[in-house]
C-alpha cells in the first residue's frame, strides 16, 4: 500500500487529506495517473506551478519508483509564517 498526503489548496480540491492506495502503484507517475483518473481537477493541480512531491519525506523530481509502504506527499507552493 502507498499512503498519499495532500496539503494546502490541494486538499481542498480533493476533499481528502490522506488516502491509501492498495494495491500500490509502481511509480510516482502511475500514482498521479490514478489520482487524475479519480479527479481531473486535482490531477491538473498536481501538475501546476510550484507543486513539489516528497517521497518518504524527501523531495523528488520526475518519475521515481515507489517502494513498498511508502508515503507520498504533494506540496503546493509554501506560504510560511
Amino acid at each position, binding site marked *: 500500500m502507498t499512503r498519499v498526503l495532500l496539503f494546502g489548496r490541494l486538499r481542498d480540491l480533493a476533499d481528502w487529506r490522506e488516502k491509501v492506495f492498495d494495491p500500490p502503484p509502481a511509480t510516482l507517475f502511475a500514482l498521479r495517473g490514478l489520482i487524475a483518473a479519480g479527479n481531473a481537477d486535482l490531477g491538473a493541480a498536481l501538475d501546476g506551478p510550484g507543486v513539489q512531491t516528497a517521497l518518504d519525506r524527501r523531495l523528488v523530481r520526475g518519475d521515481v519508483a515507489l517502494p513498498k509502504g511508502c508515503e507520498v506527499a504533494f506540496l503546493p507552493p509554501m506560504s*510560511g*509564517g
Partner: protein
Amino acid sequence: MIRVTDRPIDPGAELTAFCRVRGDTGAVASFLGLARGKPGEATVLELEAYGGFTEDAIGEMIGAAKARFSLHDAVVIHRVGAIAAGEAIVLVLTAAGHRREAFEACDFLMDYLKSRAPLWKKEHGRAGPRWVEPTARDLADAARWD
C-alpha cells in the same frame, strides 16, 4: 532548535529562556510575527505543517543560518492550527557575538520562513477562505540571500 506547535506562543517567556546562560553572546535579535487584525473583521488564520518534514526543513535552514552568520544559537517556534488576530504565528531568536550577525540571521530566517518553509496558510476572512501564497515582496526578500 525548531518547534512547531498548535499551542499559543509566549514570546516573553521564550526570550527569557533564550537569554539564560550566554557567555560570549553580545547580541540577541528576535522577530515575532503576529496575526494581523483587520478592522471590523474577525479574521482567523489556519496554518498547516507536514509533521516531521516541516521541522526537518526549518532545522536545516537554522543550521545554514548558524554557519553563515557565526551564530551562537538560534530558535524558531512556529504556531500551526487556528490562530486568532493578535496571536503570535512565529518567533525567531538569534544569538551572536555582535549585532550585525544576529540581525542578519534573524532577517534571513524570516525571509526563508515567509516564502520557502513547508507551511500552508489559509485565511478565513470576510471574503471567505483563501490560501495565502508568498507575495512578490516575500520572494524578492528571500532571493536577497541566494
